[in-house]
């Protein structure tokens, strides 16, 4: 039910029937790129909107409610404003690096989106090393951040960028180890296979407590990797005004802004895929009537519902916690999260070896 593969197959066979192989490949690539970009833009805008609404709810406010019904077009209006704003030229900045930095950041997040399975058959590329690919690509973003901080020729930016570098390098480890836990359970790095392995139950339920621990560590480290509060030291607007993007304006600033939200989406989508069963519906063991009803809800809804839940949790702790200090941030990673996740990985390997998970 609700399989997207036939649509995509018929589309490609249509292209192959009517065009030469070269043009068919080109057209399918371009249409895929356009679809992804559109999806990216719309999703980014509505994540910003969602953040503003969630934040407003946390703070006893209304949030945006003037542009469009319930303020739904507010972020579109903001985007238009940012597009029309002047790009400030900084005299002593390294202009080549300064200009290229936002693109590195945004390209990294777009590329990561490409291999996320949104539903059965709805996945741009199903790489056999999907998890590794996403990890590698998403950590490219920090290079953009470092370049931005360095090229801005601003002291605040450099401090912000250095903080971001230290932070991402540290938390990458925990993210990797936490993901490794799920990979160990599933026995594959291919995202579609990881989802298939959760057909009879999500890993967060099947994997006993260690899986839950891995999930929590992944959430914490993932939030830190996206530079979001309470780990937003790279921006830290009360200390560094705006950190690495202090000097950026207009659409270049919007790129950083959008990339932050999309990175959050990638982190949440990966958490969904690896721990929460991806687009698989929620099933209760042997409760056939309930399971059939759940099956009728399309996988896209399941995927986005779970992702939205993870994103909501991330927003929740952004808006309630104070920011950590840099030494506390690093101590949290190196003294607590890393040993715990190493131990956890050992435990999970043992569980998998003994076939003790459900």
């Amino acid at each position: 039910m609700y399989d997207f593969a036939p649509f995509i197959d018929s589309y490609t066979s249509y292209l192959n029937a009517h065009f030469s192989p070269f043009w068919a490949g080109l057209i399918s690539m371009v249409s895929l790129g356009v679809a992804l970009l559109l999806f990216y833009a719309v999703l980014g805008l509505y994540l910003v909107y969602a953040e503003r609404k969630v934040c407003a709810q946390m703070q006893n406010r209304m949030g945006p409610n003037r542009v469009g019904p319930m303020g739904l077009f507010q972020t579109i209006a903001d985007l238009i404003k940012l597009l029309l704003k002047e790009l400030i030229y900084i005299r002593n900045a390294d202009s080549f690096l300064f200009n290229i930095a936002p693109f590195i950041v945004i390209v990294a997040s777009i590329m990561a989106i490409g291999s996320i399975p949104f539903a059965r058959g709805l996945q741009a590329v199903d790489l056999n090393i999907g998890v590794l690919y996403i990890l590698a690509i998403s950590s490219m973003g920090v290079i953009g951040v470092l370049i931005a901080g360095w090229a801005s020729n601003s002291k605040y930016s450099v401090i912000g960028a250095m903080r971001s570098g230290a932070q991402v390098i540290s938390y990458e480890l925990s993210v990797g180890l936490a993901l490794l836990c799920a990979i160990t359970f599933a026995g594959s790095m291919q995202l579609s296979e990881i989802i298939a392995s959760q057909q009879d139950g999500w890993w967060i339920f099947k994997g006993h407590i260690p899986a839950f621990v891995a999930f929590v560590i992944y959430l914490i480290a993932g939030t830190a990797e996206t530079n979001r509060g309470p780990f937003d030291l790279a921006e830290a607007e009360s200390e560094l005004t705006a950190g690495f993007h202090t000097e950026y304006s207009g659409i270049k600033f919007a790129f950083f802004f959008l990339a932050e939200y999309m990175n959050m989406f990638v982190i949440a989508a990966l958490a969904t895929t690896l721990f929460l069963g991806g687009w698989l519906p929620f099933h209760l063991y042997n409760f056939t009537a309930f399971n059939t009803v759940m099956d009728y809800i399309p996988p896209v809804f399941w995927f986005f519902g779970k992702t939205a839940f993870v994103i909501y949790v991330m927003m929740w702790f952004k808006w309630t916690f104070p920011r950590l200090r840099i030494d506390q941030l690093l101590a949290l990673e190196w003294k607590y999260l890393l040993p715990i996740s190493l131990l956890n990985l050992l435990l999970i390997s043992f569980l998998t070896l003994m076939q003790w998970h459900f």
Partner: protein
Amino acid sequence: MEETLLDIDLKDREEYIINMGPQHPSTHGVLRFETCLQGEMVKYIIPHCGYIHRGIEKMSESLSYPQLVHLTDRMDYLSAHMNNEAVALCVEKAMEVEVTDRVKYIRTILAELSRIASHQLWWSAFGMDLGALTTFFYGLRDRERILDIFEETTGTRLIQTFITPGGLMNDVHPNFQKRVREFVTYFRKKLPEYNQLLTGNVIFQERTKGIGYMSKEVAISYGVTGPSGRGSGFHCDIRKLAPYSAYPFVKFNEITATEGDTFARYWVRMQEMSESLDIIDQLVDNIPQGDYMLALKAIKAPKGEFYHSVETARGELGVFIVSDGGPNPARIKYRTPNFSNLFVINKIAAGHKIADLVAISGSLDLVIPDIDR
């Protein structure tokens, strides 16, 4: 010669100076910290002030005594009532007159309300300094209610100019008592929410405990008063040491802490809010009848020198009037709390991280116009 130049160059390379301010989110006004960093660590801080220096002391020399209160509002705008009260009390002391009990009660209630409002705003901004943005809206939500009370009685919300030498500008609004009582019951319920949101948070405690230690000796030597000084165990509450207005009639505790760190200063202010509620509680039901203004022919100080201090939300505000007997003061000096509180920052923040500098300057609760005057 070249070696010396190289040495200077190397030395300069190690000194990484950033200017926090005059426009910076954490200084809450136009103040500049010239901050020398070594990595993330602060080596020393040189505060630069004067960006909002208006020469209030010079201006006051050509104003009559009742006009003085209009300028004092603009010093520490968050405790405008207390600033007015300081001038009013000093002039009354010089003229050797005493206001009616009704005036005393109302002055004290207004002062305590603005102390709560000031602490609420400080709490909101302090949370923001530490990156917890939600506190801002919780604090402002409750502060609005106090400002509504002020607006009804005085006509303005921020700089009220209500307390004047000889009494009050006007009598309070008929609703005043009712609304103050409503506020006290409302805020008693809301205050625990503040602690749930911020005080109990692990990250918050980690960020504030043991940071920015100020010993009692340092506090006294630098003249750090108010909650910042009391957080170090310096008993400097003028309301207790030299009770004025209606403070002799009420029972309350002077809140002190001995830790002397950022959390102690924070905790003193949090407790002061509930202490202020107690003071208002004791006064609001018993406001005596009487005139709101003394019938004075002319308000002017006799020849001589007079000093009077009050406890504002940030510490000891002293007014020193030198009078030749004329309609204007010959010299007026405001010993403002923030001026003395500011300069301790190099002493207590050097050696900490940048993030701690923000937390420490937030815990000193600086209002910049009060420093520059």
